């Protein structure tokens, strides 16, 4: 056997390890949540109560909380991330301005979640509290809305990282053809750039959405941690990730721990699917 074959045999172990690692993560989550899966079955997803005392567990309030925070944060972030993507990828493409902007966005991306939480709790929550007083709601400061605001800032870099690349990729001759017909820059963006870059931008949104769903620390610190379905976005709630962070160490009964691990399993499966879709789109575009 040649050296090359031996080398390839050895290096192939890497593949076995990668597959084994992912499989064992999934199996670990599955086995450890089996008590909860057996007891509650499918109703776990639609049960509205989460009661550790009477051992009745349903994930519905947290699924609602997770969807609320991530959808609201995505909607808030869209105009901003699109603008910056156009700024970097089109208006000031390859200039010093876009370099500076890219650097700042990168810095925004490396700020730890826990620092966003610290800032959100002491600076954003008081602003939200004033809003709550205006709407005559309980002035908690921490709420689903506060968490969404913090999240929207945190996910902007993820959309931009994909958005600017696909906008840069648009062939120049297409744009030049439109310009030569007397189209304004706005019309070129609306009629050519956005339709052309659409799928890439959507992939960026999906990636950001996945991030928002799994984000833990910042959300835990500003969402208020209440285990019921929030009646208003200005009231406290909980997400799947934040309830795990809050209760996992305090859970004593087996069924409680198992239910929390099932929540982790749900989170894993959702982000797995979102990531597969987004990467599939990106691979087709780029």
């Amino acid at each position, binding site marked *: 056997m*040649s*050296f*090359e074959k*031996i*080398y390839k045999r050895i*290096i192939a172990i*890497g*593949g076995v*390890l*990668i*597959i084994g*690692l*992912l499989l064992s*993560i999934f199996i*670990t*989550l599955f086995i*450890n949540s089996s008590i909860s899966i057996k007891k509650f079955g499918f109703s776990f997803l639609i049960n509205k109560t989460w009661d550790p005392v009477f051992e009745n567990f349903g994930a519905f309030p947290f699924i609602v909380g997770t969807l609320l925070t991530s959808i609201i944060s995505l909607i808030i972030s869209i105009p*901003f991330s699109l*603008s*910056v993507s*156009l*700024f970097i990828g089109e*208006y000031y493409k390859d200039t010093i301005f876009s370099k500076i*902007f890219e650097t*700042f966005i990168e*810095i*925004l991306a*490396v*700020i*730890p*979640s*826990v*620092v*966003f939480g*610290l*800032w959100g*709790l002491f*600076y954003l929550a008081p602003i939200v509290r004033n809003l709550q007083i205006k709407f005559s709601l309980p002035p908690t400061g921490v709420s689903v809305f506060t968490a969404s605001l913090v999240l929207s800032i945190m996910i902007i870099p993820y959309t931009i990282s994909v958005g600017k690349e696909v906008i840069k990729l648009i062939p120049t001759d297409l744009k030049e053809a439109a310009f030569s017909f007397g189209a*304004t*820059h*706005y*019309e070129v*963006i609306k009629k050519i750039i956005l339709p052309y870059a659409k799928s890439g931008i959507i992939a960026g949104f999906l990636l950001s959405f996945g991030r928002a769903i*799994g984000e*833990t*620390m910042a959300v835990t610190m500003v969402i208020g941690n209440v285990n019921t379905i929030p009646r208003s976005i200005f009231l406290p709630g909980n997400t799947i*990730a934040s309830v*795990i*962070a809050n209760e*996992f160490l305090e859970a004593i009964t087996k069924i409680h721990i198992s239910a*929390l*691990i099932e929540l*982790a399993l749900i*989170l*894993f499966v959702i*982000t797995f699917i*979102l*990531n*597969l879709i987004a*990467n599939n789109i990106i691979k087709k575009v780029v």
Partner: protein
Amino acid sequence: MKIFKDRIFKFLVIFLSFLTLTPLFFIFYIILKNGLSSINLKFFFSLPKPPGEIGGGILNAIAGTFLLLFFASLISIPIGIFFGMFLYEFKEKKIGKICNILIDVLQSIPSIVIGIIAYLWIVKKMGHFSAIAGSVALSLIFLPIIAKATKETFEMVPFSMIETSLSLGSSYPRTIFKVILPISINGILSGVLVGLGRISGETAPLLFTAFGNSFLNFNICKPVSSLSLLIFTYTMSPYEDWHRQAWGCAFVLIILILILNSISKVGLKKWKVKF
């Protein structure tokens, strides 16, 4: 009208772009303002005081962070490079493509789920929280970053260099270890630095693993604190003085992350091999 619309749109894009950066500047201003005032030599070199008492420092968290980063690197760097070499070698094959996706999936797993995994794998078996459990949790985040950096730098090595080495009679594995790997080392190193910056700020994976410790500890089988864990517990505490220290800690953490990231940037430029 047409031109007016165009102008308005451009103005809007620029305005919103700058507005996007305001939270960044605001956060930095606040961290500077609140952080600098609580930092002095004593802050770095003393241990926390009991809850409610004024004073104390973050020595335990600084030591813990470095301990966690050190062991996470020890686990992740060799395995990560190995995974990266596999991904490069089998990139055309189906198994390589599947593993490439799986590495992306591993990277996208929410950090709190990683924390639970490390808890179930290690803390549950050992029976108590430990630094090693925290390091394993961080490794699961660190691994895919190194694997991707390795694969991507390997791919940048021009094929002519591989051909030259092979035509001179050296075997394929020798070419990998003597030609491709040495050229790629800078790219991999920069990936390592980016990854270190990323995991030094992670908190969620450490909640159920490293757990936190208000004493100085270098034993990897015992719980340790970290800068990020300290920020979390101090922020959620009711004590005014601990809030002040949380800002100081955030300042230290941000500086650490920015340093790691800028070294990797400068390094990538400076160490870039010229072909």
